[in-house]
Structure formats: structure tokens, C-alpha cells
């Protein structure tokens, strides 16, 4: 679907492109706001920022419907937003309010929205891939044409549960997609050290499925490889692995002084691997979108976030009796 003035064919409609921009930008602004609210003491516990990895969640989830599934990590806000979770309800959850997505019981590390196919952030490294394989089994069993995507970090890629899940998905030829977000670090340990093979994609390929590497700072590249994987899954072609390289813009958690990184490292990468900057440069250069259109989205996002924070701060806290609720459906 080529738009009239573009230098090359746009890979999606203008509306989709704007929607994807909105998603990426919402994630980035959400995470920045998170840091502010965390520092202001409005967020209990600890949080992990997805800042910088927006193109990955967005490029993948852009192909998914509410009936498709994703499983996430401790760094889950971006996946939530990309999968369509309502930002105001996320904000309430992360601020531990009774009307949050999980009634304040989950918080940042366990936020979920089953109505959107978002099967939860997961505070256990490597916790989600088995579940996602199960969701893929549901899709296959019920013949829905759906797919199930697990997002996994470079550090998590060394967890046994993750390896087992890949093998199981291959054996049962399930529509599962293993997205590895290689942001260079698991806490304060480099991926170059912890991944013995130094290469997540080819290790995944050796499990018997197509596996590709992609630049995680390039939304369009992620979008393209994800499309292929999703199509393969929908058509019964079995699982796919995608390794998206990126860097972590922030610390492991908000507050991490990142002593293990070289001076200036983060600043350099923030410039070079900035998916939003890359996106804007590209869409403007290609004349697919105008800066003006993007700016107007930006201001809508600010309003959304302001309203979400205000709404969350005034939302009710859980009532004491809620402590005992929802352990079981019935007991």
C-alpha cells in the first residue's frame, strides 16, 4: 500500500504507522513518567524500565489481535502497552489501586490483562515461555489461527525453562514465537559473558526452528521479521525465534547506578540505538508521515499520562477484605 509521495513503498498503512508511533512513544513517555512517579514515592516496590526497547514490543505486537497471547518479563510495561492494555488501568495497578488491572494485587512485576491476551509480566526469570507454549497449544487445539509470543531477555535466555519451551514448541509444532530482547545485560552481567554461545538466535535455531536476528532499534526491521513469524504461526508453520539486539537505556531497575557500564556508554547508545529517533528520521525522510502528525500524537500522550497519573492517585486503595479474595475461584 504505497502512499503517494514516498521514496519507497511504506510497509503499512499510514494509520497503522501512526498507531505504531503512538505505541512506541506512549511506552517511552510512560516509562519516563514512571521514574518521576517512583522518585516521588507514588509507586511501591521496584520497577524496571522498558525505555529504549519500544520498537521490539511494538513491532511484534503490531501484528497481534486480542485473541493472540503474549507473556512478558519483569520489564513488562512496554509489552502491556503494545498489547493494548489501557494505560490508566496500568497506572492504577502499578500504583497499587483497587481498580487497577489486577486490583492492586499484582503491581509492576505481575501486571496482566487476559482480556487483551496479555498473560502477565513475570517476576520469575524464564517464567513465561512455558505458559506461552501452553497458550500456543490452546490456539492450536481450538484452531483459532492465533499465535503466542514470549518475550525473554538475554539473561533469561539461559534459563532451563526457556530451552525446554523451545523444544516443546518444535516437537508439537505450535504457533509460538520466542522473542529474545538482547539488551546486553542481565542485571550487571553482560550477555557476552552469560550466553556461552554469544549468539541467542543460532542457539535457538539449533532447537529446530527458523531463527533470525534483527536490529531492535529499527522498528521497521522488527515489524518485518515479526510479520513473517506471525504468518508462519497462523498458517500452522510452527514456532520461530527472533533475537532483537538493543541496549538498556536505564539501569536494571530504576535506581541502579550502573557502575558496570563504561563512562558515556549509555549516552552513546541513547543516540545510536534510539528507535524513536530512527523511526521519526525514517518516516520523515521517506515522507510517509509528517512531523506535525507525530507532534499531535505526542501531545495526546501527555494528556493521557497526566490523566492516568491523576486518576491513579485518586483511585481507591484495596479494602482490607480483598486480602483474602481471589485465592481460588471457589474453596
Amino acid at each position, binding site marked *: 500500500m504505497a502512499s503517494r509521495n514516498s521514496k519507497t513503498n511504506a510497509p503499512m498503512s499510514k494509520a497503522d504507522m501512526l498507531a505504531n508511533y503512538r505505541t512506541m512513544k506512549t511506552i517511552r513517555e510512560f516509562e519516563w513518567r514512571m521514574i518521576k512517579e517512583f522518585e516521588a514515592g507514588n509507586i511501591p516496590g521496584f520497577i524496571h524500565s522498558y525505555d529504549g526497547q519500544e520498537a521490539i514490543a511494538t513491532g511484534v505486537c503490531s501484528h497481534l489481535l486480542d485473541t493472540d*497471547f503474549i*507473556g512478558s518479563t519483569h520489564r513488562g510495561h512496554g509489552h502491556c502497552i503494545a498489547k493494548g492494555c489501557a494505560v490508566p488501568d496500568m497506572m492504577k495497578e502499578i500504583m497499587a489501586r483497587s481498580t*487497577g*488491572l*489486577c*486490583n*492492586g*494485587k*499484582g503491581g509492576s512485576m*505481575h501486571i*496482566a*490483562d*487476559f*482480556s487483551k491476551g496479555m*498473560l*502477565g509480566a*513475570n517476576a*520469575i526469570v524464564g*517464567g513465561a*515461555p*512455558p*505458559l*506461552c*507454549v*501452553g*497458550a500456543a*497449544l*490452546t*490456539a492450536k*487445539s*481450538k484452531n483459532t489461527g492465533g499465535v*503466542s509470543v514470549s518475550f525473554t531477555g538475554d539473561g533469561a535466555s539461559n534459563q*532451563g*525453562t526457556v530451552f*525446554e*519451551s523451545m*523444544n*516443546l514448541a518444535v*516437537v*508439537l509444532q505450535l504457533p509460538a514465537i520466542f522473542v529474545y530482547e538482547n539488551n546486553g545485560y542481565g542485571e550487571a552481567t553482560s550477555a557476552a559473558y552469560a550466553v556461552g554461545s554469544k549468539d541467542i538466535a543460532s542457539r535457538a535455531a539449533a532447537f529446530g526452528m527458523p531463527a533470525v536476528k534483527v536490529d531492535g532499534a529499527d522498528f521497521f526491521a522488527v515489524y518485518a521479521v515479526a510479520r513473517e513469524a506471525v504468518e508462519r504461526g497462523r498458517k500452522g508453520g510452527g514456532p520461530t525465534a527472533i533475537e532483537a539486539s538493543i541496549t538498556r537505556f536505564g539501569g536494571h531497575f530504576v535506581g541502579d547506578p550502573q557502575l558496570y557500564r563504561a563512562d558515556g556508554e549509555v549516552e552513546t547508545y541513547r543516540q545510536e540505538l534510539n528507535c524513536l529517533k530512527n523511526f521519526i528520521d525514517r518516516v520523515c525522510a521517506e515522507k510517509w508521515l509528517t512531523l506535525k502528525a507525530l507532534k499531535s500524537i505526542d501531545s495526546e500522550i501527555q494528556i493521557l499520562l497526566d490523566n492516568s497519573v491523576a486518576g491513579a492517585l485518586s483511585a481507591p486503595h484495596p479494602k482490607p477484605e480483598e486480602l483474602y*479474595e*481471589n*485465592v*481460588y*475461584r*471457589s*474453596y
Partner: protein
Amino acid sequence: MSIKTIREVIGETLSAEMRRDSDVLLMGEDVAGGAGCSGEDDAFGGAFGFYKGMVGEFGRGRVIDTPISESAFIGAAGGAAATGMRPVVDLMFVDFVGVCFDQIFNQMAKFRYMFGGKSDTPVVILAMVGAGLRAGAQHSQMLHPMLTAIPGLKVVMPSNAYDTKGLLTTAIRDNDPVVFLQHKLLFESSCEVPDEDYEIPFGQAAFTRQGNDVTIVALSSMVHKANAVADKLATQGIAADVIDPRTTSPLDEEAILESVEMSGRLVIVDEANERCSMAADISSLVADRGFSSLRAGIKKVTAPHTPVPFAPLLEDLYIPDEADIEAAVMSVLKP
């Protein structure tokens, strides 16, 4: 109505539920057997052959052989349950829980709570428990105490074929994760079992013997030993209540408390190791809420604080027996 063994009842009940509800599926290592092999397709039907014939009826799409990757396939059962299926997943020996425990206790058991009640995880984990097969320390454990301790899990331990059918039916239709523990020494145990399906509610104990002099709570295969002791004592004029809780989570606390209210004396028989066991759990329940009726200290009859030894002679000593139970009962009768 006909006489059936637990062995027979399990496959029948599973098959009936799979006929009834197309969302139910069975998965695990060799639940069919023969995958990728050149011989028979339905070669194993589970480690002890309980599922023989099921792959023929339901196909490999619903009777799914898995690689030896418990975290992946138990976790997948949880994930499938959370997204619309009702999987029954066979862990084989409960001892294997160690290689997939996270998926059970941190994932499926906690989903509903962590997600604010917005998810259901109707999954049943089948596992064999207990010593007696001379299978050694890694294939002979009773791990219901640690499973019972986990909020969000339900734990079922039937002692006979009738209860097995009713409780398994309930488990499959239940919307929470259920661990269904079958004692290896009971597979040939038989009794009258109705042909039509029926549910036995969780949290409802059975009184397998009745009497006011002493209360014996026994779990799983220990129920039969407790019954034998009660029968023997009856000939001596001592009347015992024998209570089979049938499910440890939820636990029928009222049944136990009511019985002790009459008898004032309690013995709990649990094949698990003694520390932090169900025997301790039930004892502490009564030591709190039933204290005023107690006329003697509460005795636990459990396995000792040792792994399960291989040598038959030692294994037989390890497993609580009728003499142990009788001695405990006599000691609470004459404190």
C-alpha cells in the same frame, strides 16, 4: 455399579470427561507412548498403563506425548488452562516436582490472586506418591505437605476407587489448579463404583469408621491401615472414628474438630516425613480450636526425618504401619 480398581477408574474417568468436554486434554511423558516409533502407537498409556486406549479414541491432538521437559509441559498445561483449555497433565512420580516446581507454585497457583481474580486456571496435575515399591529416595516421596502449604493450589489424595472417580471428576471440572495424588500401593484397591459420573466436593472428609473413643485421621493409603487398626480395636471394645480428609486443601476442619469433641483423643497418620507435615497441620488445628475437648496429647504417626531407603527391610520400617498406629492410639487412650 460394579467393582473396580483405582487403576481402572482413572482412565475411565478421564475418558468420560474428555468425551463430555472437548477442552479437556491429557498430556505428559508417554501418556500414549510410541510417538515417533515404528511399533504400536498406544504402547504405554502412561507409566502404569492407566490411559491405554485413550489415544485411539481421542487422537494425538488430545492425548499428547511430551518430551522429558517437565517445566515446559507442566507450565504449558498451566498456560493452556489460563487461555481456555482444561488440561490434565501427568507428572508421573510426584518426586519430579522439583524440576518444574516454579511453574506450579509461582505460576499457576498464583495467577488468579496476582491478576486480581481475572483469570481461571483449570488444570489438574496427576502424580503418584508414596513408598513401598523399593524405588528409592527419589521415587517414593509423599510431598502433599509442601503442596498443601501453597495458597492457590488444591490438593486431593483419594484412598479408594469410589473417591478416586468422584474426586477426579470434580478436579477436572474445577476452575482452580488441582494436584491429584495417587498412592502407588492403592492401584489394585477396589470397591463398588457407580457407572454414571458423580462429583465428590472438595473439603468433605469421609468417616470410614465411626466411634467415640478416639479419632484417627489418616491420609491416602494410611486410611486402610487406620481402618484395620480400628477394626482390631473394636473387638477390644474401643470405638474409633477414622477420618479420611480426602482433600488436604481445602481441609474439612469441622469434621475433625467435631470428632475430637466427642472423643477427646486424636492420632494423625501421615506417610509424609514428620516435619511440617499434614499430621502437624491437623494437630495444630486441634491444639488450637479443639483444645478444650482434648483429654490427651495429640500423636502423629509419620515417616521419620529420613529420605526413603532402598532396602525393603528399611523401607518397611520407614512406612508407618498398623503397629505404629495402634501404639499411638493406645498411648492417647491411657495418657
